[in-house]
């Protein structure tokens, strides 16, 4: 798309490039819970400002990745410059479309930092949800002006008055101040644009000061390299400028600057208050990290913009090629993928059971899913992912050991204690389902921090929970226990001491590293039992009896047996159709090849994947 930027119509570029006084600029974003209509509202803004020719318009215009469109989510931020005339004056509106998922909270916070205002969009039928709350707090903490808006007011089941009350209560305004729109039909959207102009403050940067531009996201274009999405706070930047990244201390030449309108259009200059892009010419997004401050190499700003943070992976998993020979392909694919994904970290590891692969760190489970799916889709790989785990900190005297792979957790009694990451979770639920929600949180080792009623019918509860307890299936269980009504969001809290033990799984007395897990001591028995039972179902009978054991240290806590196979033969092998028999055998042989041999035991790949699901069976009393 950046090629188009180059060639884009000259007239259009001139219009877009014409310098705007900061008082005519509004930078804002939309924060909303999933499915509350954020992308549809963005589509209406594009319509109203004629940013996209009608014939090119499509739904979820700003979500460019296939994955985003399929899942109806936003993964990458987008920034689009809209021209909008209000009472004879033309304004420049920069809409920054942010990701909404908790995995990308840091990216969201940087996008918010690039704005002065935020539309807090709430579905008039669904009401406030957990993500609404989380994003509202982020936006408020970033000092943004909040414009509360109800969407989907034309839905028959909408209850605008009720929800407007909730929303007014949350943002501390009058219910009449809550705007009401239908992003789908366009009703009220013009009024919303007018409100943005009147209520959202314009930028107050110093165009004469040394350049300070915030990178709030970046993407990788195979033709042009890394594209940084920037908000210019002070000063100005033109193409060909020598720039310096203040956190990474890297210096290079800006190849091109431009804006998205919504496709990339190259312009000569971005100045204080502007939102646009900068083509860096570098080939690795790690060289233009989200949160970093761009300044000019020969006229440096004294101080970087606040808030830079290194991406920190929270969830780890081993990725292994299903076909061992694909290891070099996986390595190359990860090397390529990391160019466009600054949060992805990985290191080679080898597993006795799975061979050579990589231990990868992700921002969260969604991020992990996305990476795995992109590797499979864009690089044609078939992967086995081990059960995701969090990072553990093991303390031994003054020594601190960081463990990313459960099989590397030291044996008990060789350390003082273990710490695991906790999150502060927010659950919004109908009050009638509060009991089951709290029960679930307790089962997952949660401790109640706070509880509030949004209205008599809806409550929000805050729990401190181990991250490990919510990464698998917590959300699914929450949904099923509240008939789909509860919503969840969380923020990382930090590490706390926990009574954790490593549970190993042994096949024929040999530990299978890929099945090791670190679990709370109280859950170790039920985990070991569930895991061995599951494996008994998944491991096919073999020529000999297979013993499956779960152990803590040298203590066996569960045992199952796969009895020896006795019969595996084609009863009838005459009539001359030997071709069919041979093909059956070849298929059987092929099936065996796809299994992993651990010691003498053939383990199907599904066993490694299915081990992920064991947690569902061990979560407290319930079995689904």
């Amino acid at each position, binding site marked *: 798309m950046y090629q188009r930027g180059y060639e884009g119509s000259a007239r259009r570029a001139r219009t877009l490039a014409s310098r705007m006084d900061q008082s005519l600029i509004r930078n804002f974003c939309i924060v909303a819970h999933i499915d509350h209509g954020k992308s549809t509202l963005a589509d209406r803004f594009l319509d109203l400002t004629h940013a996209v020719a009608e014939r090119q318009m499509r739904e979820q215009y700003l979500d460019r990745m296939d994955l985003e469109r399929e899942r109806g989510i936003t993964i990458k931020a987008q920034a689009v410059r809209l021209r909008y005339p209000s009472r004879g004056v033309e304004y420049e509106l920069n809409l920054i479309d942010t990701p909404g998922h908790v995995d990308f909270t840091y990216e969201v916070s940087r996008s918010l930092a690039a704005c002065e205002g935020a539309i807090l969009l709430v579905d008039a039928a669904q009401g406030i949800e957990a993500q609404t709350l989380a994003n509202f707090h982020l936006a408020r903490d970033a000092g943004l002006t909040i414009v509360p808006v109800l969407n989907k007011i034309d839905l028959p089941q909408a209850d605008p008055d009720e929800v407007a009350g909730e929303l007014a209560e949350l943002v501390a305004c009058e219910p009449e101040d809550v705007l009401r729109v239908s992003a789908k039909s366009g009703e009220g959207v013009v009024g919303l644009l007018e409100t943005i102009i009147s209520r959202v403050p314009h930028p107050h940067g110093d165009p004469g000061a040394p350049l300070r531009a915030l990178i709030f996201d970046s993407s990788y274009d195979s033709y042009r390299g890394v594209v940084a999405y920037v908000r210019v706070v002070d000063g100005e930047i033109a193409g060909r400028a020598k720039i310096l990244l203040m956190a990474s201390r890297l210096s290079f030449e800006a190849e091109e600057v431009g804006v998205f309108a919504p496709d990339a259009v190259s312009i000569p200059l971005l100045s204080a208050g502007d939102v646009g892009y900068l083509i860096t010419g570098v080939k690795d997004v790690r060289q233009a990290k989200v949160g970093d401050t761009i300044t000019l190499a020969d006229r440096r700003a004294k101080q970087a913009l606040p808030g830079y943070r290194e991406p920190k992976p929270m969830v780890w998993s081993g990725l292994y090629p299903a076909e061992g020979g694909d290891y070099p392909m996986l390595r190359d694919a990860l090397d390529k993928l990391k160019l466009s994904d600054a949060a992805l970290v990985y290191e080679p590891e080898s597993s006795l059971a799975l061979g050579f692969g990589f231990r990868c760190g992700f921002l969260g489970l969604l991020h992990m899913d996305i990476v795995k799916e992109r590797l499979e889709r864009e690089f044609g790989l078939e992967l086995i992912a081990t059960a995701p785990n969090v990072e553990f900190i093991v303390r031994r005297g003054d020594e601190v050991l960081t463990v990313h792979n459960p099989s590397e957790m030291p044996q008990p009694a060789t350390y003082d204690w273990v710490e695991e990451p906790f999150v502060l979770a927010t659950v919004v639920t109908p009050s009638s389902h509060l009991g089951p929600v709290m029960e679930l949180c307790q089962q997952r080792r949660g401790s109640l921090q706070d509880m509030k009623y949004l209205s008599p019918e809806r409550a929000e509860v805050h729990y401190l929970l181990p991250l490990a307890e919510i990464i698998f299936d917590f959300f699914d269980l929450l949904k099923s226990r509240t008939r789909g009504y509860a919503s969840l969001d969380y923020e990382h809290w930090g590490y706390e001491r926990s009574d954790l033990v490593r549970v190993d799984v042994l096949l024929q007395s040999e530990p299978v590293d890929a099945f090791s897990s670190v679990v709370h001591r109280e859950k170790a028995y039920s985990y070991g039992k569930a895991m061995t039972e599951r494996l008994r179902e998944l491991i096919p009978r073999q*020529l*000999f009896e297979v013993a499956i054991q779960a152990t803590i240290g040298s203590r066996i806590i569960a045992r199952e047996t796969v*009895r020896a*196979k*006795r*019969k*595996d*033969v*084609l*009863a*009838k*092998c*005459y*009539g*001359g*159709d*030997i*071709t069919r*028999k*041979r093909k*059956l*055998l*070849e298929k*059987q*042989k092929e099936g*065996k090849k796809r299994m992993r041999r651990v010691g003498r035991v053939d383990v199907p790949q599904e066993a490694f994947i299915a081990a992920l699901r064991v947690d569902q069976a061990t979560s407290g009393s319930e079995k689904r």
Partner: protein
Amino acid sequence: MSEPAGLYVHIPFCLTRCGYCDFNTYAGLDQLSNRYVEALQREAELWAPEWQDATFVSLFLGGGTPTTLKHDSLVNLLRGLRSTFSLEPDAEITSEANPDTVDEPYLARIRRGGVTRLSMGVQSFDPNVLGALERIHSPDSARRAFSAARRAGFEDVNLDLIYGANGESIESWKRTLEEAIALTPEHLSCYALTIEPATPLGRKVAAGLTPAPDADLQADMYELACEVLAMAGYEHYEVSNWAKPGHRCRHNLGYWEGRPYLGLGAGAHSYRDGRRWWNVRSPQQYLAMVSAGERPIGGDELLSEGERRTERLLLGLRTAEGIPVDWVEDVRADGFVAHGLAERRDGRLALTDRGLLLANELVTELVE
């Protein structure tokens, strides 16, 4: 060159279709049988030039139910084939038979017409098991047919038995084996019931209407058969086949030993010099092609060296004689020998009774 070969003739007609059977056979097509027998003779003539140098040591009439043919039509067919091919004077000529389709006069006619061996689909002597298999005959009719065969002069009779049908207990299977032995047939084939997906029974199992056979129970039944038949003087010479000394089925040995065979009739398979081909399955299409003077080939394949090797192992290891030890690397077989699944004897590697029941698994381990 006079290479020993087998001749197979497929008769795709049955009185009824059994629920478990996935063979190429049809009920209610008997009106085609005269034309079909004529077509078999024509097909034989189409192949004759290429098979002049082969000596057929066995002929097997399979089905379907060959004994649904009228006796004179069956006898004429044999006569025609003898005049078309070079069939050894003392060739083994087997016909499959359904107990309900034969009586003594019929059997006497085909015995005189050249059939030397009879293979009867008895399946079980337990009426409940016969019901579960949807067989139309009763245990009594099987016994009657057997004695009719003896009176008709058959000195080489096989009984086919099937074990592991729904509801069959180990005791019931034991009684079936004892009843079979009491008749003193020269040969017994005992097949574990196999569920084929494309059969009525397969669909019932898939729909959960009837249970799939229990592999462990079938293994127990197999072991019982090994024990009981050995005591009765039968040699276990192939996975599912037992015979009194000197009564092994030469025709089937031909398949297992990789000898050439020519198959005539709808869906019949042939093999020679690494090439296998098979006829079209539909009897109508078969008739149309043959009457147009065309060989009714439906498909063929040329086996690669690896595939031939796999087949040699797959087939050879099914037999009591096994394979020459040097066909597989010692290390691959050592474990099986150590675990009592295989034995090395006189330069040959053969599976034990326990190993035979795992032949698929073992062969996949032995081929590279």
